[in-house]
């Protein structure tokens, strides 16, 4: 098994752990999720960012006419950082390595679902608490 396949396998495990709710992803901003965890004695920060590049331009010349095509690209950046030593452990950017795009998109969707579900549960808790108080 080469290194890429190993990473793919690790990401698949992250997807499973996220779907089962074992990983507690937090949102830093609308397109970035992260978890802070302890690996051996070091603190690790694992993050995933969805990067939307709108309007990447491609200039095409048809005869004398200059046609500018603006395309939207979606990339994902997966980063694992040792926060204790401030070292970057791994960084996968699908803009430079598209082979990880499908898996990281699945992980991002799972994270979004995970955080939305957590928020929804919190909201439901408030509503049910209101019901108890009014009774």
């Amino acid at each position, binding site marked *: 098994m080469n290194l890429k396949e190993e990473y793919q396998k690790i990401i698949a495990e992250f997807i499973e752990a996220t779907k089962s709710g074992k990983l507690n992803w*937090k*949102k*830093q*901003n*609308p*397109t*970035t999720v*992260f978890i*802070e965890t302890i690996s051996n004695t070091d603190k690790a*920060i694992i*993050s995933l*960012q969805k*990067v*939307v*590049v*709108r*309007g*990447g*331009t491609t200039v095409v010349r048809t005869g004398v006419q*200059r046609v*500018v095509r*603006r395309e939207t690209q979606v990339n994902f*950046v997966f*980063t694992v950082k040792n*926060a204790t030593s401030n070292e970057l452990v791994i960084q996968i*950017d699908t803009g430079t390595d598209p082979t990880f795009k499908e898996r990281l998109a699945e992980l991002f969707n799972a994270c979004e679902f995970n955080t939305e579900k957590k928020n929804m549960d919190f909201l439901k808790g408030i509503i049910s608490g209101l019901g108890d108080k009014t009774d």
Partner: protein
Amino acid sequence: MNETNEILKGISELNTPFWERFDFWLFLLLSIASLIASIQAFREAKAARKAANNAGQTVKIQTITIELSEIIQKLDKLELKIEFSQARDFYSEVNRRIKRLTAPFKGDDEYKEVISEIAETLEELKASLAEVRPIENGEGQSPVENSVYFAVEKHFSELGGQLAELMGYFEKRTLKKD
């Protein structure tokens, strides 16, 4: 008799048409020469005024080019750990300066295409920035340090390229006038 002849001679001299007189042609030639000189002077003054206007425009365009190159240099120095508030302030400054510099040329056929592309990139940059606006979670500094950089880096890079293209068009214009 002699007196009569002299009177007749005088009368005959008075009856000579003016175009047959030497002094008429002399004055006519002098008048034409002065008219030609006046026209020439007017043309030269007009050409001098046009040259002064062109020189003024060239100086203005050179000033704009210098300012554009300053913006490009700033765009190139985007920090990897840039925070959202810094990126937002930087965007506001760049957006304001570019809009001011390009506004006079928006309708100009030579530049309108690239200026419209620049405006689109600025709008896209604004949208990308909104996507990394921090969610307040009371935890102070953002744990993921590069998220803003990843969101805006490609747009800033593209903007730098478009501004360089605009500078090229401006330089072409000054070269033409030289």
